């Protein structure tokens, strides 16, 4: 029997087959937010309180990338032994915002270049015997 899958950060992304980040959009000025914001648009020219939950774009352009060669401190849950991973900042064109995330396992910085198209997928962030805690990651298209 497979492990049960839960979101490592509940409410930050959908768990369906075409996963997407869950953000907010101000119904007055159109500004997007990630993670979700329930009230008070931060655009100082707006400041309205009516924010709706919306799915964010699943693909974007790679703004920049790096990697974690050393094990990060807690609350990061590191596998034994620690496996370095790449990290991407991806520009969502429609939302005009850049979102960070790990890059899928098996892809290192040598396979990335600024400007390439990336898509969002889910992968385990950490796991125990019964449960896989999933997180969004970026994968080159």
């Amino acid at each position, binding site marked *: 029997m497979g492990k049960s899958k839960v979101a*490592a*950060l509940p409410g930050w992304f959908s768990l369906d087959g075409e996963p997407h980040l869950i953000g907010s959009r*101000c119904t007055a*000025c*159109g*500004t*997007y*937010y*990630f*993670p979700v914001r329930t009230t008070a648009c*931060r*655009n*100082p*020219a*707006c400041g309205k309180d009516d924010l709706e939950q919306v799915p964010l774009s699943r693909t974007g352009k790679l*703004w*920049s*990338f*790096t*990697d*974690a*060669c*050393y094990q*990060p*401190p*807690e*609350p*990061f*849950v590191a596998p034994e032994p620690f496996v370095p*991973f790449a*990290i991407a*900042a991806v520009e969502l064109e429609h*939302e*005009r*915002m*850049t*979102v*960070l*995330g*790990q890059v899928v396992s098996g892809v290192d*910085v040598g396979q990335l*270049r*600024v*400007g390439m198209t990336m898509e969002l997928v889910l992968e385990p*962030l950490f796991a125990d015997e019964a449960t896989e805690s999933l*997180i969004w990651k970026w994968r080159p298209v």
Partner: protein
Amino acid sequence: MNTEIAILGVGMHPWGKWGKNFVEYGLVAARAALADAGIDWRQVQFVSGAATIRCGYPGYVAGATFAQALGWQGAQVNTSYAACASGSQALAAARSKILSGECEVALVIGADTTPKGFLAPQKGDRPDDPDWVRFRLGITNPTYFGLYARRRMGLYGDTQEDFAQVKVKNANHGFDNPNARYRKRFTMDDVAASAMVANPLRLMDICATSDGAAALIVSSLDFARRHGRGDAVRIAAISTVTPTFASEILEMPDLATDSAVAVDAHRFRSALPRKAYEEAGIGPEDVDVAEVYDLSTALELDWYEDLQFCPRGEAARLVREGVTRLGGRLPVNPSGGLACFGEAVPAQALAQVCELAWQLRGAAAGRQVEGARVGITANQGLFGHGSSVIVKK
């Protein structure tokens, strides 16, 4: 209206890992600044401390902690916390008191004791705290430095050798600085041989964390004249502005920028010195020396552009051509910068001002920028904090 104040005295405790309480470091720096100013501690009417969040309650009330350590004498007291800009905020508080006439002489002070390794978030399960969330995802401070560096490579064609040149330059600058922690010259090969931390940045591209303390005695210009120090160097501007929505660049500890759907994106790092230039009524062409926050080698190059020393994308040329090394047209980080100091958060912004004071007095033996009359600092930290201070003769 005159908005300048005088720097009567500066002092530091050398940066390092000394294993002592932060109060001891602060005392050394405060006494050095008092001696440099030639005033008695009991003449200080306001103590403005920069807080440390790693040393318990005494750190949260750093102003009072140092006032007590020096001997309670009835001064007014204040403590500021603003991440990397804490020292500048404390300095701004002192300037306000002085310019409003509430006091004539103030001690501004910051000291820290730092843990080994990555700066980590406070303990506990706090998914509402963006600082906790990003560490949960394995995103450390070097992650952001790596992203900025790679962006420069992708956009402007900077190379890892350009970044390494910043380290080599700063190591040369700090070699003779008695307050620097790392006093060793490095070659390009040394940098290239150090371990990769956050590609494209290696261990020697990224600054360490250190213990250290810095203190200033500042006063009204009138007090300085009466004290026989009418020629003291002056603080001409202190910028501690917030970012303007929408943020253009991913900033620690956020996982996303603001969305620029409704309003244009703004670059926080350039806003900080812009406000300082406005306040001092000068421009980048007037600057002789700068102390900038080289949390990473590549970030120093970003600062050249944010300080308007060159157009966007051309910073690597300045370091390649030697413009920003001692003897060049516009030396940057003559102290050795964070590369030679390591970051002691609440002391660092004040250490930058101390260095400019020494440079403008012509007292920076072994690392003097000849004829320097105007200097600027720049730094930026977490949660929308940053500062830029202009010191002039």
